[in-house]
């Protein structure tokens, strides 16, 4: 095994960058494969071996691999999310939720008007938004290092980023659609007319959803680039 020269390294980076991959997982895997393979050969064989790799890792093959991985990750995140949500309906958690809801119902009697109820409903969404910004910043920092190391100029992101962030925005879109749609189409001011108990149930459900999304990230972030 030898160390590649600067010039050889540049050639490898150029070859990888020309594939214009967007999934950081695929990019690091292919880059490592190229480097591990080329390091096993002498300088005189470099051009030939790089050519052979380029025949095997064509742009079409790499993009197909990327599409397949994205599809599998989306499916995997969906399955994991459902498993986490289901966990809330097992006996010890149900007891916790019932206890939590009882306290919350007792407290809901202190909600004086629709504005307070609306603030309560917005709170879980606010957590989600803050978390999304954190995820975006954290992921960008981690990917920036990889982007720099392979001279990739085009867009690069973890294949896990979009499936998780889509799930973050799902409740936001649903809630705002209900509120705005009712207001615009039927002239019903949902946020100011909602009963405190309904607002509370809604908030608790949203809160469970927010926790489940955070749990997906907690599990996946241990082994990935998000």
């Amino acid at each position, binding site marked *: 095994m030898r160390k590649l020269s600067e010039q050889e390294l540049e050639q490898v980076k150029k070859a990888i960058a020309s594939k214009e991959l967007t999934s950081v997982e695929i990019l*690091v895997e292919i*880059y*490592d494969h190229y*480097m*591990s393979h080329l390091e096993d050969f002498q300088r005189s064989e470099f051009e030939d071996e790089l050519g052979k790799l380029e025949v095997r890792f064509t742009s079409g093959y790499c993009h197909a*691999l990327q599409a397949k991985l994205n599809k599998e990750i989306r499916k*995997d995140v969906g399955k994991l999310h459902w498993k986490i949500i289901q966990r809330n309906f097992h006996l010890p958690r149900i007891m916790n939720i019932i206890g939590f809801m009882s306290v919350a119902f007792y407290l809901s009697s202190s909600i004086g008007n629709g504005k307070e109820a609306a603030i309560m409903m917005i709170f879980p969404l606010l957590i989600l938004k803050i978390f999304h910004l954190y995820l975006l910043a954290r992921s960008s920092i981690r990917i920036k290092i990889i982007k720099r190391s392979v001279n990739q100029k085009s867009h690069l992101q973890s294949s896990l980023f979009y499936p998780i962030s889509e799930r973050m925005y799902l409740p936001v879109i649903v809630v705002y659609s209900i509120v705005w749609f009712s207001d615009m189409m039927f002239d019903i001011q949902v946020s100011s007319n909602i009963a405190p108990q309904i607002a509370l149930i809604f908030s608790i459900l949203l809160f469970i959803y927010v926790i489940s999304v955070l749990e997906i990230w907690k599990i996946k972030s241990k082994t*990935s680039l998000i």
Partner: protein
Amino acid sequence: MSNNNLIKGSLQTIILKLLEENEKMYGYEITQRVKELTAGEIKITEGALYPALHKLEAEGLLSTEIQQVDNRVRKYYSLTKDGQKEVTSKMSELQGFVENLQRILTPDLKPGFNI
């Protein structure tokens, strides 16, 4: 030796078995280990290897770990608990298949024949 079609059906078992013996491995290392064990007779192509690794990962049989190695990032694969259980069943399935294949190819062999 053109054996790609023969290997295709047993690639997942090969990967799982190698990972059972080695705690964690990366893609290129798997191809080289197979080449080494079979004296170059079996070569796993990248076209088959990476989709198989990603599929096993999505099925929860493999977990991944990202590590910084020599100024680059490397993705290591290792067996999950489910993966460890799966190795035994996949191995006996493959061994059973090979025994049956042997009986077809050599009909004179007695039914109790074991490889």
